């Protein structure tokens, strides 16, 4: 198994006396798209800042490309493109001017500027002062600044923030293309669960500074097996019928939730319920979506109301 591109172990971070990260660990495999999920204030941005050396952790180790961040920070940053929270830009300069600064800081050729701006959809506005850009355009510029050095690892904090649906779709395609065609490893935080579901190969869920889950998207989804959902007029009578059939079920939002039944078992269940005088309105198979999984991870009680 190859060394993870990003490996963090037991990160502890405090703001003053307030602990904000409680020993979190991250394993980002090479070539993966890692969606880092968490509610506002969960610790996503603090984690990203710590991973980049902007905050020194109280405890824990961070290795990128197999190298210790504390010792090889500059060499690591040469191979990394970043977008942290709100994009940084010099408003009085054009998009080209802002990228020229990146070129000078990193010793890059300016030849890459125009293709990169076209890549993020700023080809028509590259000479316009950035202070006249919309929020979405500034976000695209931030992405261009991260992409310009053609990094092996992209660390992006809310890259879809401020983008319209078209922009979100474009950025999604861009990230997928970079990952599939150039093998760029992408670690990004997001609130948009549907986007993570569409792009990520791996997922980490953070809540109140603690990791609640880390693994592949498939592993996360498999945590909640598919189920059969039944809507009836009388859940108490239905539960008694199910008990007689030695089926376990629980009631959530007025519906019965059972482990996924075969077609034959579903047919038998409906017959038994009707025979017991229970009116059956709806029977369907259901696979949890990422949002339900996420909510269950960060709010364990919300799913069993």
């Amino acid at each position, binding site marked *: 198994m190859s060394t993870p591109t990003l490996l963090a172990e037991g990160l502890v971070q405090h703001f003053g006396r307030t602990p904000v990260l409680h020993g979190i660990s991250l394993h980002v495999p090479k070539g993966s798209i890692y969606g880092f999920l968490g509610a506002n204030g969960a610790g996503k941005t603090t984690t990203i*800042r710590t991973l*980049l*050396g*902007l*905050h020194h952790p109280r405890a824990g180790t961070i290795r990128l490309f197999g190298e210790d961040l504390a010792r090889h920070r*500059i*060499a690591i*940053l*040469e191979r*990394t493109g*970043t977008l*942290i*929270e*709100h*994009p*940084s*830009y*010099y*408003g*009085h*300069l054009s998009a080209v*001017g802002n990228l*020229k*600064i*990146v070129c*000078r*800081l*990193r*010793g890059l050729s300016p030849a890459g500027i125009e293709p990169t701006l076209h890549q993020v959809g700023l080809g028509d506005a590259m000479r316009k002062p950035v202070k006249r850009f919309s929020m979405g355009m500034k976000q695209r510029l931030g992405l261009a*600044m991260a992409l310009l050095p053609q990094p092996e690892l992209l660390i992006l904090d809310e890259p879809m923030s401020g983008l319209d649906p078209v922009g979100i779709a474009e950025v999604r395609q861009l990230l997928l293309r970079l990952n599939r065609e150039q093998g760029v490893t992408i670690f990004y935080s997001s609130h948009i669960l549907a986007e993570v579901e569409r792009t990520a190969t791996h997922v980490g869920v953070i809540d109140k500074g603690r990791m609640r889950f880390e693994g592949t998207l498939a592993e996360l989804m498999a945590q909640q097996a598919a189920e059969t959902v039944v809507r009836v007029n009388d859940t108490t009578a239905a539960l008694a019928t199910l008990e007689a059939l030695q089926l376990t079920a629980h009631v959530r939002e007025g519906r019965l939730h059972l482990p996924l039944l075969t077609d034959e078992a579903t047919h038998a269940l409906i017959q038994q319920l009707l025979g017991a005088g229970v009116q059956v309105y709806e029977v369907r198979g259901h696979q949890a979506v990422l949002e339900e999984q996420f909510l269950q991870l960060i709010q364990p009680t919300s799913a069993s109301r």
Partner: protein
Amino acid sequence: MSYALAFARSFSTEVLKTRRTLAVWSTLLAPLFVVALTFATGLRRFADVTSYAGNPWVAYAADMYTFSTLLLLPLYIALLTYLLNALEHTSNAWKYLYVQPIPKSAVFYSKALYALLLFTLCMAILGGLTAGSGYLLGVLRPQVPFAAWSFWEPLGRITANIWLACLTIFSFQYVASALFKSFFVPIGIAVLATLMGAMLLQWEHADKLFVCYPTMAMFEIRGVTFPKAGNYLLYGAVQAVFVIAVGEYFIRRRRAL
């Protein structure tokens, strides 16, 4: 990548960032403003040949640098250092700079060097314009023998002394404006430094107090040397290096906003 290369890269971005900004314009316009005002008053003052004695360049430079040292330079230094650091504060750019493959100290010192070069350029322009306007004054007031005296020694020495005397205030302002976003901090320091500089001149330890140095240098032009001045220019240079080094230490340890 060597530190020198990282420093050079960071320095070159400072030049690019500040093109056509107020930081550069103020460096060009501030001395022009002082010289224009002093030249206008000099025209009247030097109509009377009894208003000077000896080298007229010294008298002219004294007029020029009194106003500059007392008011303009503290404000200019505050404005310059604020504008250079405000570029990063308002652009939300510190965090971006600190995740580039450049040592944090190179970011800090390259900007400080650029600010110092602009300040030096401002002083050089002030000296150059003083010489030019003095010659013009000599043409318009032929009774004043500007052409008979060399301006190099008095103007060079006076300009260098004022520059040296302002170095610690410059360092202080640079560090303050890197630490704080608000313009009121550097302006407050400028006002406080000017007031303290005037009030504490007679204090027995005035030679150790950097706020007094510009005023000491200004009076020195007029031949007034304070008994407690000591080797204040040397102290000033040492303090300036100390302040900038301590400032860098604090800023490196600070969380990038």
